[in-house]
């Protein structure tokens, strides 16, 4: 497998060096793997800390900055970070107003963030946690580790981040985050496997003419394999899977997310089909974001995330954000 890397062992450290070089507005501790907005801790502000395995860029480090995360903890590729990182991040960003951990629902992330929360609280930091579990592909969640956290993470980080930036106290910020989780659902497909540096090649073989249906963002196979579908058919299946679980009473925020290897040209075309289907299902769309935001290295494929946005969430969405990967408003 050909990758633009030095050696598999240093990919995360190399990326953090490159992130630091490109973004002077971030403080990057390459050694300890913590990315912090430069002006942290912001007096009186609740801080948001997230993290997870690397390989999903720009998530999470690309979302550090005013209006979104205060710190991110990147783990090894597809491996949740260790508690030490989160404790250090919490200490670096806590102004005394408390810290919200945004955790994607994977066993590894959950366990490591839990340990970190205990340790941080021992050090006197008030910690709240929100678990993101939006992936409707995982249906029988009683018999699994629960629904996975995928695209909705972006919504949680943006909306709770905006609430924190407005000065909301920890309980409010946590409540916003929870509301976003409750109101968000995702579904994804993969048209190819991704290649991890550790494995040095594709994480699974996909026979020609097939696709993986209902995938996560870790290069794992999907819930089922299906015969290749058109963009329009995939949009129908994905939107309907989401709407089966989420009957939005409000206009939605729509994220049409690329897994990394699908060209933007195709992603925009897919957005057209998703919008067509949503219109047919009479779901009004308030805001749309199209791009590679929650990726799975070079996996080809896409996911659809909807968040039923009440007026407050819409206002928080439109609030200014200033991070490497998401940026608007003042």
């Amino acid at each position: 497998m050909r990758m633009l890397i030095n050696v598999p062992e240093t990919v995360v450290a190399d990326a953090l060096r490159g992130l630091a070089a490109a973004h002077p507005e971030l403080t990057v501790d390459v050694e300890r793997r913590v990315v912090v907005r430069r002006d942290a801790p912001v007096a009186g502000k609740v801080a948001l800390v997230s993290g997870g395995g690397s390989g999903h860029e720009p998530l999470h480090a690309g979302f550090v900055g005013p209006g979104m995360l205060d710190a991110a903890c990147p783990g090894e590729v597809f491996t949740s970070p260790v508690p030490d990182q989160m404790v250090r991040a919490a200490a670096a960003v806590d102004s005394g107003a408390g810290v919200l951990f945004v955790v994607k629902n994977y066993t590894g992330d959950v366990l490591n963030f839990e340990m970190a929360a205990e340790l941080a609280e021992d050090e006197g930091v008030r910690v709240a946690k929100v678990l993101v579990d939006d992936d409707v592909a995982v249906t029988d969640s009683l018999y699994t580790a629960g629904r996975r956290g995928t695209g909705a993470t972006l919504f949680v980080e943006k909306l709770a981040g905006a609430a924190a930036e407005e000065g909301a106290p920890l309980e409010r910020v946590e409540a916003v985050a929870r509301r976003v989780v409750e109101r968000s659902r995702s579904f994804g497909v993969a048209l190819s496997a991704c290649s991890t540096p550790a494995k040095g090649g594709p994480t699974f073989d996909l026979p020609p003419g097939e696709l993986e249906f209902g995938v996560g963002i870790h290069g794992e196979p999907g819930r089922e394999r299906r015969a290749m579908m058109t963009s329009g058919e995939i949009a129908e299946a994905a939107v309907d899977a989401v709407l089966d679980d989420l009957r939005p009473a409000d206009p939605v925020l729509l994220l049409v997310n690329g897994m990394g290897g699908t060209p933007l040209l195709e992603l925009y075309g897919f957005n057209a089909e998703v919008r067509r289907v949503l219109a047919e299902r009479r779901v009004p769309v308030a805001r749309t974001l199209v791009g590679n935001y929650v990726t799975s290295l070079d996996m080809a494929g896409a996911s659809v995330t909807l968040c039923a946005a009440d007026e407050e969430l819409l206002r928080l969405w439109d609030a200014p954000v200033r991070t490497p990967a998401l940026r608007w408003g003042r």
Partner: protein
Amino acid sequence: MYDGDFAVRWMAAVAVAVDREAGRLTELDSAIGDADHGANLRRGFTAVAEALAKEPPATPGGVLAAAGRRLISTVGGASGPLYGTLLRRAGKELGEEPAVDREGLARALAAGVAAVGRLGGAVVGDKTMLDALTPAVAALSESFAAARSAAEEGARATVPLRARKGRASYLGERSIGHQDPGATSSALLFAALEEVAEA
């Protein structure tokens, strides 16, 4: 009786075994997971072996607790906190004793395994490391060899199971037919233990 030095050699043997088998573990994890289990444990046990070589605690309890802490702060993923808790809990259970017999080791590891169950919420049959760990600690009161073969048997027995915990559970039916990577690495732990004990 097994002392601190024995525990250090055990952990070093695990590091060697995990390093040797990393490719296979990753391969298994790539079938029903995210292809990192080998790299995860290699990173963790290399760090453990290095730390123990530098500053070896005097007691077996001290060694296992230190190893567990080191795993927690270097591995990440699901296996980091779980294996870390296994060893940390077992180490705490052993307390300050300068040496321990096989029975004592079995009791301490049983406490560790119970802690893993509480932390991860899995039970035997969920296709996780517990499927190897649980029969192995039970058999350890018999002999090191029995523990090793129980672990290996337990790991093999995960093949026909449908995963209900961890990342493999997302695959539903498609997790059937593959051996669980964590159960496989657990068997390496007990193979290393037998190896060091018989040496």
